[in-house]
């Protein structure tokens, strides 16, 4: 049984999804890496921001 923390699950999800998005949505290796990193930072960044927003709402 695999029981990651919520944040670890987010990091795994972002990594796997970003690899696929990078490869399928761009044509050149350089553009793939750039787009993959962009997607990854967006996945994780939005989660971090949303988490802080929920924390502020709760207070």
């Amino acid at each position: 049984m695999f029981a990651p923390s919520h944040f670890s699950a987010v990091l795994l999800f972002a990594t796997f999804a970003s690899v696929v998005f990078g490869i399928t949505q761009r044509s050149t290796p350089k553009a793939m890496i750039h787009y993959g990193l962009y997607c990854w930072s967006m996945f994780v960044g939005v989660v971090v921001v949303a988490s802080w927003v929920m924390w502020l709402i709760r207070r």
Partner: protein
Amino acid sequence: MASKVQVPAKTQTTSQGFLYSALILGWLVPGAGHVLTGRWVRGLLLFISIASMFWLGLAMQGKLYVPNTGDVLDMLGFAGDLGNGLFYALGRIFDLGHGAVQIATADYGTKFVVVAGLLNFISAVDAHNLRIGRKV
């Protein structure tokens, strides 16, 4: 989201044989469609990503949807799971993906499995576009 994939003005077939082989093979085995078109590294990365997502999802006690005519979300979940191709068949054959939920992240596992299938659909279509020369 606008795609920046380079698209030739006119679609051209780049190889002989069955036109949809990359699409079908890519659906059955993640990344295999890219390997068929000669993109080994891309195929390997896609296989690692999608396979990891699927099997980690099951390891997180995620659920495998079965054919159903009930709730709309369940039907969509089944459609997503189907994208995993042979992995889904293996999961059903070995009776995985319906254990009693014991951890809070099991719902994430279900999402991992569904999203892995959806990502594999995208991957298979990309392989098909490479095969027919729509993408370079």
